[in-house]
């Protein structure tokens, strides 16, 4: 097991380098970082432009340029943003922290509720509650996050205060404007709506996964054997059924991080939540290469990491899989 993990880790590094190279090429082709720089800083002197090109590794030769960029990145000599020449890490750090908080909240709520609904539905396949859960899940899948976000905003920002005279949930930001210091209660209140929007997607997906996975397990041979041995239905379900049904779901959970991050990006923007998604879309809109590259590295690295986790957890949970 240990060697297996080590080997996968060793492969992750070259993969990371390679994928970031692709991203580097794609961003240079698609956003033209030098033109963006000149657009945002129309009075920049040739010396400044040259310095920007050097710092960002924007060599006409993509391979050489990439390695210049990589060297600066690894030695933490990160170039400053195009707009306002600000340091990148402080912004990125805040955005990352906000997104991780929102992501954890939404996935926890989403996965727990989703799994419970899936189990609930699978216990009586074809019954009324199964149909209800299944239909609700379909509706959830068919609602893009921005649609639910808009409808929530309409409800809470406009109509709630109109009908009840007070705002229940704020519809933007992490804190009220001008707030300083840390206040978990206020923060939690601001996170409710974005969390719900992202969680709806996750619930819809996981309730279906869990339902079909559990149905598969419950109808399998060894469950029938267990039942025939006279073990109680409840014990069958919790002792054998759930554990086996969770194996594919856990794997999918780790692989699904891309989809969750995608939902976060969209949701954050609508709720003006200062996370990775808002960071990305504003940096992308400006063509701000120094801001975009570290963001991409984090996203690529986390995607690879969760892929790795999926493999490991799969191997660990399913004793039938032999390592090596």
């Amino acid at each position, binding site marked *: 097991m240990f060697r297996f993990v080590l080997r996968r880790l060793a492969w992750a590094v070259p993969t990371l380098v390679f994928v970031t190279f692709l991203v580097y090429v794609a961003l240079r082709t698609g956003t033209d970082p030098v033109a963006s720089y000149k657009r945002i800083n129309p009075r920049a002197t040739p010396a400044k432009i040259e310095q920007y090109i050097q710092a960002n590794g924007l060599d006409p030769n993509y391979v050489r340029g990439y390695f210049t960029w990589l060297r600066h990145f690894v030695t933490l000599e990160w170039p400053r943003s195009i707009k306002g020449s600000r340091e990148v890490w402080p912004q990125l750090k805040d955005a990352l922290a906000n997104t991780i908080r929102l992501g954890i909240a939404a996935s926890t709520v989403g996965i727990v509720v989703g799994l419970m609904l899936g189990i609930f539905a699978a216990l009586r396949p074809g019954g009324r509650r199964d149909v209800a859960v299944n239909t609700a899940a379909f509706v959830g899948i068919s609602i893009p996050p921005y649609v639910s976000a*808009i409808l929530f905003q309409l409800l809470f920002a406009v109509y709630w205060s109109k009908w009840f005279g007070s705002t229940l949930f704020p519809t933007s930001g992490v804190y009220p404007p001008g707030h300083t210091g840390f206040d978990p209660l206020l923060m939690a209140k601001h996170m409710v709506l974005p969390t719900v929007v992202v969680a709806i997607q996750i619930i819809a997906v996981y309730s279906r996964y869990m339902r079909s996975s559990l149905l598969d397990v419950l109808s399998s041979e060894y469950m029938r054997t267990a039942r025939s041995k006279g073990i109680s239905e409840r014990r069958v379900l919790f002792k054998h059924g759930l554990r086996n049904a969770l194996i594919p779901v856990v794997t999918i959970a780790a692989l699904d991080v891309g989809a969750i991050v995608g939902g976060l990006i969209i949701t954050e923007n609508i709720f003006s939540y200062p996370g990775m998604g808002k960071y990305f879309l504003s940096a992308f809109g400006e063509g701000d290469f120094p801001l975009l590259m570290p963001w991409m590295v984090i996203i690529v690295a986390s995607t690879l990491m969760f892929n790795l986790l999926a493999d490991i957890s799969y191997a660990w949970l399913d004793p039938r899989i032999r390592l090596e």
Partner: protein
Amino acid sequence: MAFNRFVSHRAAVVSVFVMLILVVFVALSPLTARYGVNEAVQAPPNYFLTPRANAWLGTDDIGRDLYSRLIYGVRVSLVIGLFSAIISVVLGCLIGSVAGFRGGRFDDVVMRVTDLFLAFPFLVTLLVMRNVLGAIDWLRPVIGDISSVRFIIVLFAVFGWMGVARIVRGQVLALKEREFIEAARAVGASRWYIVRRHLLPNSIGPIMVALTFSVVSAIISESTLAFFGYGPQAGEGATSLGILVGAAKGAVNTGFWWLAVFPCLTLVMIALSINFIGDALRDATDPRMQKES
């Protein structure tokens, strides 16, 4: 058999009717739409009218009828959905069947590219690739300007084939081992013949399912792009569902609820209907289900 099972999926039957009505409305759009796409319902003041007799779903900021614009918008969105889905299904079938049939290195490469793209946040990939494709000058005469409907169709097709290829490849791998293929091989049938006569007909169920889901994902993707201002520029004569949903964002605080609610509901209704149809198709053509019933 399969048809009976499809019909037993009640939600899907309702969805088929909903989509049929929608398609008829859209196809007959000059008749069913009450006004032109850019026509005001009345002389100013005509902006932000609530739903009323001469504007069933209200009007927008320059007095255009939301109901008529929804019909024109759905038309553009359905075109984007259908065309990009068809292209991606054709591409996906070709690549998937070749990958499944030949296996080996080609298979590895295709599946790894697919994994890579599907693991990344979709919107990010879409936006970055949109810029990359748009920056390639020599492609422009073929795929059109970055904000054209044609470009969007190509962009979605470039992504869409991957999911389909994965499904088709799985089918091919499974079917490859079945007896009738072995038999055809034994009598010396060419590979292409086997693909054409046996593999594709036997995969038609999953391919149809993939097609329906491709349509949904293209329609939703179009709306997502348009929502964030990267959507198609349908030209002065048209609009799209995404553009209308995107305008909903601005209508939230002002309390012009009709501008937010109706486009959003239309989008959800279309997505839900096609999803139900796809689900029923999957149930109807799933060989495992065949055994049980």
